[in-house]
């Protein structure tokens, strides 16, 4: 499996470079964004003296490259922070300390990631079932009414922004019909059942906007496969239409569905900002948007790197899965 090992190595190397460049870009971009960090941290009524003290304490007066160097040091060697009363060590990989709250970025990320994962994992199940299901049906009942309706529904998902879907869902399901309590995030570790209930609506809303892509992809690849010669072979050998669809046509679609799924997952972990915001899920996306607004550079860089990591990872995984699902393909 030398080819595979080589592929993994190349991908890792690529990912490292990508993330490195990404961090530089973010540093530069946020270096030039307006917003006096020290003033924001200190509060608008802070006197110049005070602001200066804060700036020193956060090492904001250092030139850009020095600050970036500190960032790299923290990443590979760890860093020490003063709480005022004591000094505490932040072991490598240390992404630094939030300007706003003084918390360690790694801690923040670790508290936020489970939430984002809970959201995306659950949504994934739904969008797969909904999307692939729709895709199969519409490929099978091509041109019939049932297909049009299904397609319309999934498209409605794409067309309607999640903050609309989500809010309306909540108002109707929780407010007017009172079928569910309003979602209120609960840690899985605290109460798995409540966790699931609390995430049901977020899952639905997120899944609804993704499902259409899967439906489209499934349908397209199935139609493509149905046009292939080997389908003709099995028809010519008296294999029933159901079996042809289920065994052969659908099988042909799996490779690309898997690939799409990996990528969707990767980008949703950090990308479900609106969903998280609307449902008050303390996830990566929401925190990141907040951090950007208050120019909390360490948090932004840390989170962007984590998100970037997941995207890159997802894409690599997509390739592997793709190759596994479709043996004709060799990774290169």
């Amino acid at each position, binding site marked *: 499996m*030398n*080819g595979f090992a080589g592929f993994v190595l190349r991908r890792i190397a690529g990912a490292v470079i990508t993330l490195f460049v990404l961090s530089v870009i973010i540093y530069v971009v946020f270096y030039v964004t307006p917003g006096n960090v020290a003033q924001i941290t200190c509060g608008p009524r802070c006197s110049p003296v005070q602001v200066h003290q804060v700036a020193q304490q956060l090492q904001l007066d250092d030139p850009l490259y020095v600050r970036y160097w500190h960032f790299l040091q923290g990443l590979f060697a760890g860093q020490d922070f003063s709480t005022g009363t004591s000094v505490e060590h932040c072991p490598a990989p240390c992404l630094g300390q939030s300007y706003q709250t003084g918390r360690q970025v790694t801690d923040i990320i670790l508290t936020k990631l489970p939430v984002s994962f809970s959201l995306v994992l659950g949504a994934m199940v739904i969008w797969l079932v909904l999307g692939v299901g729709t895709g199969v049906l519409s490929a099978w009942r091509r041109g019939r009414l049932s297909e049009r309706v299904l397609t319309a529904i999934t498209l409605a998902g794409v067309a309607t922004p999640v903050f609309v879907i989500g809010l309306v869902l909540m108002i109707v399901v929780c407010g007017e019909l009172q079928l569910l309590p309003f979602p209120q995030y609960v840690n899985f570790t605290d109460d798995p059942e409540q966790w699931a209930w609390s995430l049901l609506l977020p899952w639905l809303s997120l899944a609804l906007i993704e499902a259409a892509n899967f439906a489209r992809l499934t349908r397209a690849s199935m139609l493509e496969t149905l046009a*292939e*010669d*080997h389908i*003709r*072979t*099995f*028809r*010519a*050998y*008296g*294999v*029933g239409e159901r*079996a042809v669809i289920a*065994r*052969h046509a659908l*099988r*042909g679609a799996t490779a690309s569905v898997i690939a799409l799924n990996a990528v969707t997952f990767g980008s949703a972990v950090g990308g479900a900002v609106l969903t998280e915001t609307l449902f008050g899920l303390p996830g990566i996306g929401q925190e990141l948007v907040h951090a950007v607004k208050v120019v909390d550079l360490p948090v932004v860089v840390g989170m962007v790197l984590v998100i970037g990591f997941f995207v890159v990872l997802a894409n690599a995984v997509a390739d592997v899965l793709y190759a596994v*699902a*479709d*043996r*004709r*393909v*060799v990774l*290169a």
Partner: protein
Amino acid sequence: MSLVEVTDLTVEFGALRAVDGLSFSLAEGAALALVGESGSGKSTVAGALLGLHRGTGARVGGSVRVAGTDVQAASDEELRMLRGARAAMVFQDPLSSLDPYYAIGDQIAEVHRVHTRVSRRAARARAVEVLERVGIPDAQRRSRSRPHEFSGGMRQRALIAMALACEPDLLIADEPTTALDVTVQAQILDLLHALRAETGMGLLLVTHDVGVAAESADDILVMRHGRAVERGPVGAVLAAPAEAYTRELLDAVPRVGARRTGSPATDEVVLEATGVRREFGRGKRAFPAVDDVSVTVRRGETLGVVGESGSGKTTLGRMLVGLLEPTAGEIRYAGRPHTGVNPAVQMVFQDPVSSLNPRRSVGESIADPLRARGERDEERIRGRVTELLERVGLDRAHYDRYPHEFSGGQRQRIGIARALAAEPRAIVCDEPVSALDVTTQAQVVALLGELQRELGLALVFIAHDLAVVRQVSDQVAVMRRGRLVEYGPADEVYDSPREPYTRQLLAAVPALDPELAARRRAARRTPVAAQRPAPEERTRVA
């Protein structure tokens, strides 16, 4: 009663009438060959026998009875029972005809279980059994491989195995060997023959190749434009064709015996390859497609390059025209080493479809070399192009037409015209006729010959069809696995081949005379296990 009873069959796709009032019958255990050029509707007939046109919008008229089932009247259920169980079909392209995602054994087992109520395990066992029967070595293990891990020949065997799975009374083979090399083709044809002898099933063979028909059928039915032209016992029809068209067809078939006449060969060397080697892939995965090959082409001379798929003949051709750089060795043009493309050395491609840009008028395509040379005067360009069009036997009015409006043969002529536009001294023809019907083949070959005489072109003629090569070549190079097996004057190579491989190749060429074919077959009969696929024969996956 007979196995197949077709009366007054007509099949229409929209306006096109593919089959027009065709009637024939096939007795139990008999073998009938449907022969015809592309568009004669022969494959459509094959499909009709299994009712494959249902739900495709094709209109089917007349009646078709197969193994007692009235295909027209049968319910979907009855049809399914017929398909595979009593009449099985073997398709042309074994790669695309098998599901790439499942192990071959499983695919056969699946089909088997559709028709017989047996356990998964039993079906799997049956699959291995039939695979063994069709001569897949180590069937138990190989049954777990997927199609792309099989060579072309093995795949075709697998398809036949699938057909055998339910012991059908009728085997319908649609161009079963068209995609295969001659040697493999011979093996497959032998296999079909053996199976018939053994199981006594009927065979309906659909092919464009009269030779193939001669090899493996008792009766022959020549088709044209969806109608039957002539029918009768193979021997009789081939020996003394009653119809003009049949005769035409037969004359067009190139004979390995036919030597080349009146070559304008000189000894001025135009194109020369010395010890060229070309590798694909890097590091561990690198393999040589061409290895240490040296050839020379003189003015007015034709070098024929023969070899089976994967022998590296195309790679050699592309190096000669400079589309590929040799990894080692050098290409010399008129004595001077040349790298990169050179208008004086042109190429005619195999696939008439992909060799012309579908979005540009053929005139424009032909004008390319002129414009590239810096010609700006539209008048002269148009003049020259129409001149060329007419030269290759097309109409000056074709200038503004698009490729899809032309037949395969015409497109190949356009390709030639484009090559000529560059006023080349050498043209490399990569399988120029292998995608064409025999009659068209003959015309194109003739055209190339004329042009060569006129312009004293040096030609390199790459093909897998030995007969065609002999027809046109002065020198012949036989290639195998990237290396030159035998290289010399055509007559020597063909009449007294030194290398066993060359002999094997020649022996595999289908003969038009059934008796000869039978004798050859006897001679060829070697233990099935020996027919292992050559490694490079497996389709590579980048």
